[in-house]
């Protein structure tokens, strides 16, 4: 099925099988392997990307459902000053070790920062509960994101 979308500002068009998830399209067809796959059933949050500005699980969306949408993956954050400040905060606060979960946390946190109405920083622990990290114990990530949200 023909699928047309915009990924990190660049239009893409291709013929994809309907069973292909958006995560697999990004990783295997567009070679954007910064989107990580942990559980592939919507639990771990590692595959979080932005779809028309909203954080979504790319393993729970078929590529054909993303037709006509604009997507941002971790590769699209290189020139984003907000994302740079968040990366610095995570590094300075030891908010990552192995880094597997980090792309998902970055995109979830960016969606929270741009949410309208703005999110209350006190809700950060609850709102980040949809992303699993097996290294840090969450405290450093929550502290870094909370400080960055201001």
């Amino acid at each position, binding site marked *: 099925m023909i699928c047309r979308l915009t990924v990190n500002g660049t239009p893409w068009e291709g013929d994809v099988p*309907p069973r292909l998830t958006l995560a697999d399209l990004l990783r295997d067809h567009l070679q954007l392997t910064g989107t990580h796959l942990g559980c592939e059933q919507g639990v771990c949050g590692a595959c979080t990307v932005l779809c028309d500005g909203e954080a979504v699980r790319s393993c729970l969306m*078929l590529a054909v459902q993303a037709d006509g949408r604009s997507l941002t993956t971790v590769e699209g954050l290189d020139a984003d000053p907000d994302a740079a400040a968040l990366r610095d905060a995570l590094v300075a606060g030891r908010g990552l070790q192995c880094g597997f979960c980090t792309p998902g946390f970055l995109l979830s946190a960016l969606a929270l920062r741009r949410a309208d109405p703005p999110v209350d920083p006190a809700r950060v622990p609850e709102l980040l509960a949809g992303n699993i990290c097996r290294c840090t114990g969450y405290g450093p990530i929550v502290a870094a994101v909370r400080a960055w949200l201001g």
Partner: protein
Amino acid sequence: MKPAPVAYRRPESLDEALADLAELGDRARPLAGGQSLVPLLALRLAQPEVLVGLERVAELRGADLDGDRLEIRAMTREAELERSAALPPLLGAALGHVGHFQIRSRGTVGGSLAHMDPAAEWPALALLLDATLTVASARRGRRRLPAASFILGPLTTALEPDELLEAVTMARPDGRFGFAEVERRSGDFALVGAGCHRGRVVVFAAGPRPQRLPGVEAFLRDGGAPGPELQRRAHAEIEARDDLHASAAYRRQVGARLVDQVVAAAS
């Protein structure tokens, strides 16, 4: 795991979608936001021949939240409702428990109702608020069902294979209410949950489907108040099941406490 091969249709209108379902019957599954069905496809617990993607069906989108009677069309996403200034506080409180915010970006009201997970919030809300569900088919036209007749059991509703859930309507919930859940982690499915509004009391995630507690409601009508007697009645009335997350005894015990809390919050 990856979903099995499947065909995809993308109807552009409600009539087209209903025609697809009338043609395909139980070989097809409608796909709304996919937050429940896509994991089932990935785990190969669901293997339809055809998915009927509803993302282009304009008649199924949007919600009217301004009047005394609310209408939420089936493809309305939870994130859209959360952003609406007209959203009644009871629905706002319950929505905060629906998955994680990334799930609510894609998850739809109709998808949750039609999927009927016993632990999901929307079927419980529909029962609590005495909602009416409008379902449509190409052959038989529309029928309107009260939530209590729509909800049959785990992953089971009154929807026939050729029918689509079109919209849910309900009187605007106003005044005091209670809504509470016990979950292992914020955003996880409830181990047990409860709601109370205008004298109606519902427990969910305990048994095979959300359950009204008529005995507790009668106790409240007769002037009963939160406390040990109300908890005893709730405990006796709650239908609970064992699974790997919690025992039936735990669910009854915690559910009775939650009922006490939500009744207190609503009174």
